[in-house]
């Protein structure tokens, strides 16, 4: 096909692979409900360069999905509001951009993969139609050409007999195949950033591994920036370059993937890693984190994690810890990070 689908930045621009694609700075998101103001994201800061995989890790309710929605600009508003901070795509603040311009970035430059592919695909249209819609909306391609592109994409995400399957409806695909369709849709316009919001949570374990492998293969091929939102430490270990661990709407630890598994510098990360079932600990009780994640309408004073932390001291309930530099590119939001780090030796 001789259709040039990409009027993306000029090659020279693309060469500059180390270039920062996305900078999120001090992002605050809150939900204003009738009874309370729920502070879902409280000062999230991270950046993403092309070719990099950043994992955002956290329990449910830690604000990871909400922050992704804020970046995409698909927050349900009201009740959700971005109250502070900036989100810069290639230096341009997306929060102050006109909606029209922002919509053109969505899907084309920054795409998103959702958790549950069955409910994320429109049940009344064929998958070819839906993938093709990307080309029609953003590039004004004809129906016929877009269908050819859709078949190519299905082939690219390794769906067997792609040419026939473009005519199928979402419910005719298995869970893993459906997630591939979703990935094909997200990658259709060769975006620079892909945000994957728990892409494998709805799938069974063998399929999870295939989907993650596909995602990381495609990321290598296209050298895009990938933000992987997950609560699954196992998923992260294989594919991520860097990890942001979120708790109660903010990052509590930021590190390269190897460092964090070897020596966590925050008690929360430490506890998370301990709670992974391990073969060599067979027969012993599984370690858990006591308590539940905080109610985001009433986040505890001081360090948000202190009520559940086994290292908590008096200062933790009163003073909020700094996001302290532990090493180069590595930070922890804990008063006692040197002790945590030391204990791992």
């Amino acid at each position: 096909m001789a259709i040039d689908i990409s009027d993306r930045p000029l090659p020279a621009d693309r060469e500059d692979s180390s270039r920062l694609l996305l900078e999120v700075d001090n992002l605050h998101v809150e939900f204003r409900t009738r009874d309370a103001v729920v502070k879902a994201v409280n000062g999230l800061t991270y950046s993403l360069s092309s070719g990099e995989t950043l994992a955002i890790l956290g329990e449910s309710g830690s604000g990871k999905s909400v922050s992704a929605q804020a970046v995409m600009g698909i927050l349900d508003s009201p009740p959700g509001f971005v109250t502070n901070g900036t989100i810069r795509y290639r230096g341009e603040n997306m929060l102050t951009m006109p909606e029209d311009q922002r919509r053109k970035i969505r899907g084309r430059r920054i795409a998103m993969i959702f958790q549950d592919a069955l409910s994320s695909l429109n049940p009344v249209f064929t998958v070819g139609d839906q993938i093709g819609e990307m080309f029609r909306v953003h590039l004004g391609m004809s129906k016929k050409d877009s269908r050819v592109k859709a078949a190519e994409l299905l082939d690219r995400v390794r769906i067997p007999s792609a040419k026939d399957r473009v005519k199928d409806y979402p419910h005719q695909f298995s869970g893993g195949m459906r997630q591939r369709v979703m990935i094909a849709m997200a990658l259709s316009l060769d975006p620079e950033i892909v945000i994957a919001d728990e892409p494998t949570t709805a799938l069974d374990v063998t399929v999870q591994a295939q989907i993650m492998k596909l995602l990381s293969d495609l990321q290598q091929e296209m050298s895009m920036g990938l933000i992987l939102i997950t609560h699954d430490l196992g998923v992260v270990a294989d594919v991520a370059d860097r990890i942001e661990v979120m708790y109660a709407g903010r990052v509590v630890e930021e590190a390269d993937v190897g460092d964090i598994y070897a020596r966590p510098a925050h008690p929360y990360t430490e506890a998370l890693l301990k709670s992974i079932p391990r073969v060599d600990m067979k027969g012993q009780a599984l370690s858990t984190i006591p308590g539940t994640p905080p109610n985001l309408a009433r986040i505890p004073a001081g360090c948000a994690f202190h009520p559940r932390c086994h290292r908590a001291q008096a200062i933790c309930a009163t003073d909020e810890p700094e996001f302290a530099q532990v090493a180069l590119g590595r930070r922890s939001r804990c008063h006692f990070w040197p002790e945590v780090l030391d204990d791992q030796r």
Partner: protein
Amino acid sequence: MSDRDIGDPDSATPGATSTATAQVGGFGGRQASLTADAWRELRRNPLFIFASAVIVLMLAIAIFPGLFSGVDATNKREFPCLLSNTVGTPTADHWFGFDLQGCDYYSRVIYGARPSITIGVVVVGLSVLIALLFGTLSGFYGGFLDTLLSRVTDVFFGIPFILGAIVFLSAIQGVEVLGLITLERGVTTVIIALTIFGWTTLTRLMRSSVLSARDMDYVQAARALGASNRRLMIRHILPNAITPVVVYGTVSVGLIIAAEAALSFLGVGLQTPAISWGLMISESQNRIQSAPHLLLFPGLFLSVTVLAFLMLGDAVRDAFDPKLR
């Protein structure tokens, strides 16, 4: 680089991928959208076949009455109205007998189909258009627009349907519009009256249906991939929200036809020399004992038509609701 070599359980035989279609009978498993399934279901439903046969027949009568009756409406051609035939009972040549003026009653019943069915179809068509517009906008945008449109809907919803239409039709009789046309009771005014008081249920239905479709993940997903609001509404929400409106719309064609008959019977709907089933029933009321056939035939046609639309609506609802299969 293929992942089939690691024994991808996903890429099993195509037949195994569609459990949903297998349930519906297992044939033609490849293309089965909700509508295709519904259509397959409908074709096998005797209720649907009977109802659509009746409706097709009635539509044909309404559109080409000349095909069904050798005489035209005013009986000028073959069988002139003869007063000597007044309220004559059915004969071999005149199946339905004669009316008060001695005109062939069969051809009057045939010609009476057009206004009744026109009113039913046009009123429902207009109501569906209003419902799609108002319901989609208010369900999708919410907020102030929703409040405004919903309150307007509530105001109209609060007025009793038939009573509202009676008052409206009585009030506009003889009113001049911009000094151009004088409103007379006729098909147009009845359509206006029934639409004004009849659109609300469909609009409420559409709104609630849009509300639930709007929060679906695929709408969010489409938004995240760059679809505009207009596109979200037309392509992603509307097709998924329209089913209840289609179903209730079908049923209401019957209800509206009955309502037109009621208005004409009460003397505020169509008026002679127009012909309609309601009007004929109205004219027969003084002679029910002496000439029951004057009531029987238009009443029969009216009931059968209304029933056919109700049954069609039922069949369509069943077909679109997988839980009822």
